[in-house]
């Protein structure tokens, strides 16, 4: 029998454990909790040590079976799906209007209520869209350069090998309206014009988000916003690259237009999904503020039972919408850098690399103001055949590493980037014999310092399976895969919503604020969204 009665549970937490649970059952319950991702990191590590014991066959089987069973139950369709109720909304609005002003006055804007602390500082729309970063290749490892200018020169020198097109699973239903023809979409992306198209769609989205609750209206407005965006993109694809600058200027981001034109000049090579490094290749990631609104948009659409428009989905923003535990910077360093790798869950044979950077916490919670912060990823061509920054399918240059070093209150303190890598040589032999795959070089200058300082972190990939990777890496991978699915990306490989759900459920970890659990809910919503 149970230790509690309904009238107790209705009001008070009941301390302690069920009286009829034996030690054995409590132990098995811990294993089950591990299987469904409910242990703390410390507890989970204990269980993992235990499971590594060859004699623990039954426990390993328990974990495997409970996981599969729980995931199947979790993502099984509801037997009789409930419908949304207009009466409920009316009642809630009436109650909200009648509520004491004190409660309302203290309430913050809706998006904030659900936003992570990292997102306290939301960038402007222009900053959001003008994406960020430039990546280029074939550059001497020890030289910092004026990115945009030199990129032009380099465009013709670059050598590339397209990735083998992975067998793509059936795509998600198009979120709103017919999809843009793949070719024109890719071309538009290559020109960077898609960002300009986004401006309009996103402004529309915000209006819609504010309008709320009227999903039919949302649908049609969204469709027209989207189709206008596509028209822009298609038009720009047909035009000269310079059109980009004009479009961007029109979008209210004139200060970025010049840079964008120079980027557009490098469009031809930009259509590739992955690039071949020649000699020792670098990716330089320069930071710009980006808008974290992508996750909020995705959430809002899915909450309304709709798939978000593809261009509202930005993988790097989604990935960076979650908290990952990176170590504090050591000693006097301004940053810590975490680099690790595992099997790519959606492309067997590929490697997935995570780069996490965390800045120093200060007493008042304001990140340190620094100058000239540069992250550079140098790939070792002896080991890496090609690499792709997730979130930059568009053309390998839109990494939105947010500026987490501006010294502004609320600026994000960490940033995560994921790379998908193919190894040089089939399967590349014994992982233990490999050289480092890449080196992350992070440099910064303190305002009062004469010279910049930095740290370098090489990645020695030991061929780790995906399931063996840290939970944070696995969760970030799930988020990235979710983004690719929502985008209908050609790069999504074997990524499916059930796979995303399984990875995320396994990697939910401690999740004190419930953000990861909420993500799982979104994945499930995506399965029934239209």
């Amino acid at each position, binding site marked *: 029998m149970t230790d509690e009665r309904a009238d107790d549970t209705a009001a008070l937490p009941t301390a302690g454990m069920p009286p009829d649970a034996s030690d054995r059952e409590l132990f098995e319950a811990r294993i089950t909790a591990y299987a469904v991702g409910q242990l703390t990191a410390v507890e989970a590590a204990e269980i993992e040590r235990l499971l590594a014991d060859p004699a623990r066959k039954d426990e390993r089987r328990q974990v495997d079976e409970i996981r599969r069973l729980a995931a*199947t139950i979790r993502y099984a369709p509801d037997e009789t799906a409930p419908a949304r109720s207009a009466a409920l909304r009316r009642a809630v609005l009436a109650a909200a209007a009648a509520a004491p002003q004190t409660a309302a006055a203290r309430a913050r804007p809706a998006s904030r209520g659900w936003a992570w602390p990292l997102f306290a500082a939301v960038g402007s729309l222009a900053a959001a869209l003008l994406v960020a970063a430039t990546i280029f290749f074939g550059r001497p490892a020890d030289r910092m350069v004026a990115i945009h200018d030199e990129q032009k020169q380099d465009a013709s020198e670059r050598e590339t090998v397209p990735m083998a097109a992975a067998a793509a699973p059936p795509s998600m239903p198009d979120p709103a309206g017919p999809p843009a023809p793949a070719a024109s979409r890719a071309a538009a992306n290559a020109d960077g014009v898609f960002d300009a198209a986004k401006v309009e769609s996103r402004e529309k989205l915000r209006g819609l988000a504010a309008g709320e609750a009227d999903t039919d209206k949302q649908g049609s407005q969204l469709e027209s916003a989207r189709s206008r965006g596509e028209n822009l993109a298609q038009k720009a694809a047909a035009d000269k690259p310079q059109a980009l600058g004009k479009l961007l200027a029109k979008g209210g981001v004139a200060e970025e237009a010049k840079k964008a034109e120079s980027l557009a000049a490098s469009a031809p090579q930009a259509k590739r999904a992955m690039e071949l490094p020649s000699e020792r290749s670098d990716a330089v990631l320069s930071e710009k503020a980006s808008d974290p609104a992508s996750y909020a948009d995705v959430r809002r659409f899915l909450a309304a039972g709709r798939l978000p428009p593809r261009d509202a989905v930005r993988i790097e923003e989604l990935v960076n919408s979650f908290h990952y535990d990176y170590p504090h910077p050591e000693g006097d360093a301004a940053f810590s850098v975490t680099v690790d790798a595992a099997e790519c869950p959606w492309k067997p044979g590929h490697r997935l690399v995570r780069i996490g950077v965390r800045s120093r916490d200060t007493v008042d919670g304001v990140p340190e103001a620094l100058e000239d912060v540069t992250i550079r990823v140098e790939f070792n061509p002896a080991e890496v055949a090609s690499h792709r920054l997730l979130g930059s399918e568009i053309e390998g240059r839109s990494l939105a590493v947010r500026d987490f070093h501006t010294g502004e209150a609320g600026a994000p303190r960490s940033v995560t980037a994921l790379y998908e890598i193919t190894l040089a040589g089939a399967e590349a032999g014994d992982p233990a014999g490999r050289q480092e795959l890449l080196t992350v070089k992070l440099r910064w200058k303190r305002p009062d310092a004469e010279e910049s300082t930095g740290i370098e972190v090489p990645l020695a990939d030991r061929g780790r399976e995906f399931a063996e990777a840290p939970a944070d890496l696995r969760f970030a991978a799930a988020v990235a895969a979710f983004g690719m699915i929502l985008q209908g990306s050609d790069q999504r490989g074997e990524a499916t919503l059930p796979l995303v759900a399984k990875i995320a459920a396994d990697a939910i970890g401690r999740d004190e604020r419930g953000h990861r659990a909420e993500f799982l809910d979104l994945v499930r919503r995506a399965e029934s969204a239209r």
Partner: protein
Amino acid sequence: MKVSRPHDVGSEGMSASSDTHGWILEAVDLYELPLQRYARRLLGDFDLAADVVQHAFVKLCEQSQAALEGRVAPWLFRVCRNRALDHLRQSGRETSIDDCDRPPGRNSVAADPARHAEQHDLVGRLRELLQELPTPQRESIDLWCEGFTHRQIAEITGRSEVHVRVLTHRGLSALRGHPLVQQWLTADISAPPASARKP
């Protein structure tokens, strides 16, 4: 379906009055359906469930957003649960949510493999099997399925986290021990039944 709103919102962003209610409407968007599912499973009745859910959201309107920061969902589910218990108590069924909870071994899920031998029926059948679990076990699993952590489930149900862990374990173990489920678990894992259910 049009929903009237007390104010107009321009495309430049939310108006001030919308800001004050926005978080509640967002909570409705996010949690209406999960709450309805939960309440319906507790009460076995659509209309009662709708009442209970509405009650929870109306109560939410009286709360300060800051005070609930980060735990709106557990709060809503807890209020919903308490209200559902009130209903059960009034109808003389108050023991049904906590009256029956046995450890695994005395399998509470009826084994009837002959009746549902078809593998592809498993997902639907799992939902049925889940309904046959003792309510506290089923409730713990249902809330986990809704995305809550064990800690949050403890908060919602007023149980300890360890208790939630044990309840979840008992429920999942009972299902796992069902011959039909075992048959699936030990069969070819390349064809999980979950893949067949996407519309």
